[in-house]
């Protein structure tokens, strides 16, 4: 019975969220009941009785600075505790572990497309192994959606034009709701699915099953890295981004996660958002020492293609583009 009133706990963070929730319920119940009891007791105790004069019952008390300070200060202190607790949980949610296993998610009206880097693709379903941190890198093809798994107590908006991330570590085998939690049109409430948490062995077995041939647009079968390599060649990226010193474009090997310096002196870390922007709006940040000649690929590559391309660039070692330096991010 109680199960129908409380969601399942299936991730490492869910318990922390629930603990905070219970703390807040306790504090709220205390103050709520306190006020309710006070109002009822005072109303009854000082109710006007028939036959008495309508004056105040006794000495009029209409202020007390001490009380005001107390009932301002104590709630404020409690509120700060709540803030700190909530912020700590949130900081944990915002920092994916380094060994998190990445999965790409693209939302669109009205479905979820999930891409395992090993190659399997899913629609409206996400298979993950228990006990392993997973990081979702997400974007939308059209309007804002939100990837929400109540059993994990997690959601993140999925916004067109940028990447958002969400990480979790499942703790319980089972099947859980996946909801879209940002209104997105006609079939918003049908943009739902399932997260299926499996034992590690079962997950490995599932992962290595032959991925079904997918026929969405220009998507090719194979892992994102393979698809990205194909795009890199097909779109002519290698024409400029090659290993010769006379190359028109900067080398791409090992750049992910490192700082880059631009022509105007500013710097930025080359993260996934930077890579995406460089492909779609190449003139906004010109690497120092190079000309602004890269064309834009806006409209030529869809969101999944962009993620594949980025995954490929991330994997570059040196021979494919640029000198031998660093490993992928």
């Amino acid at each position, binding site marked *: 019975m109680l199960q129908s009133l409380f969601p399942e706990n299936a991730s490492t963070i869910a318990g922390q969220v629930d603990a905070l929730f219970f703390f807040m319920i306790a504090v709220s119940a205390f103050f709520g009941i306190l006020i309710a009891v006070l109002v009822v007791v005072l109303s009854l105790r000082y109710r006007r009785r028939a036959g008495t004069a309508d004056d105040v019952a006794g000495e009029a008390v209409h202020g007390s600075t001490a009380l005001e300070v107390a009932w301002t200060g104590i709630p404020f202190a409690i509120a700060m505790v709540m803030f700190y607790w909530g912020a700590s949980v949130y900081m944990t949610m915002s920092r994916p572990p380094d060994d998190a296993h990445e999965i790409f998610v693209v939302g669109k009206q009205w479905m979820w497309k999930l891409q395992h880097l090993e190659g399997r693709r899913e629609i409206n379903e996400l298979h993950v192994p228990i006990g392993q941190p997973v990081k979702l890198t997400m974007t939308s093809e059209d309007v804002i959606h939100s990837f929400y798994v109540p059993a994990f107590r997690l959601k993140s908006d999925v916004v067109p034009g940028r990447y958002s991330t969400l990480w979790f570590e499942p703790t319980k085998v089972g099947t859980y709701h996946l909801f879209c939690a940002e209104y997105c049109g006609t079939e918003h409430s049908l943009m739902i699915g399932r997260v299926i948490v499996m034992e590690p062995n079962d997950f490995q077995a599932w992962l290595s099953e032959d991925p079904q041939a997918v026929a969405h647009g220009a998507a090719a079968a194979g892992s994102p890295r393979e698809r990205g390599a194909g795009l890199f060649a097909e779109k002519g990226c290698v024409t400029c981004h090659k290993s010769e010193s006379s190359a028109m474009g900067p080398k791409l090997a090992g750049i992910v996660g490192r700082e880059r310096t631009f022509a105007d002196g500013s710097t930025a870390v080359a993260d996934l958002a930077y890579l995406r922007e460089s492909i779609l*709006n*190449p*003139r*906004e940040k010109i690497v120092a020492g190079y000309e602004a000649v890269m*064309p*834009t690929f*806006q409209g030529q590559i869809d969101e999944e293609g962009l993620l594949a391309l980025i995954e490929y660039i991330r994997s570059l070692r040196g021979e494919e583009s640029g000198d031998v330096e660093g490993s992928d991010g």
Partner: protein
Amino acid sequence: MSSPGHNVAHQFDDAVQQRDASTLGMWVFLVTEVMMFGGLFATYVLYRSAYPEAFAAASHHLNAQLGAMNTLVLLGSSLTMALAVRSAQHGARFGTVAGLLSTIALGSVFLGVKAYEYAHKFEEKLVPGPYFVFDGPEGTHAELFFSLYFAMTGLHALHMVIGVGVLGTLAVMAARGRFSVAYHNPIEIGGLYWHFVDIVWIYLFPLLYLLGRH
């Protein structure tokens, strides 16, 4: 109970209260205008820092000379407005009317130049929408610049048109001798409004026209 002159509305106790109330009312109204333009300015500033190259390239298509001339015209109109207020404070009917009409004239010059600029943008196909054409790879962000350019200068121009209407009404009233040393608050608050519209342009001009110019 006060015995107000026929210029004091029934809800006010006396002319002083009426004058103070209408002045405060105009200031409060100008605060709302600051917030409204503020939202637009904030949008512009944020996009400008996100896309500096594209915005600078787009800004170059604006005629900075015309913009500068318009700025001087508007500053001049604020001078004539201030002179009109001063005349009103002294009860000088001719000075008041002359000041108001000069302000209207200069304001109209400004609007005329703006209309010319807009027409020119239309010819250059720089009006955002389905017919927008921009040479250069920063096309989409340049269109963003022009969307904000038209929104900001258009809203400002609308305020100027309304201002011209208000000043025109005041000029007619002044010509008919409605104002005096004792009663001229409408001219003063009309002046407040006009100066405000001028100040908005003082910010608009460098933000829009002088990007990336040295």
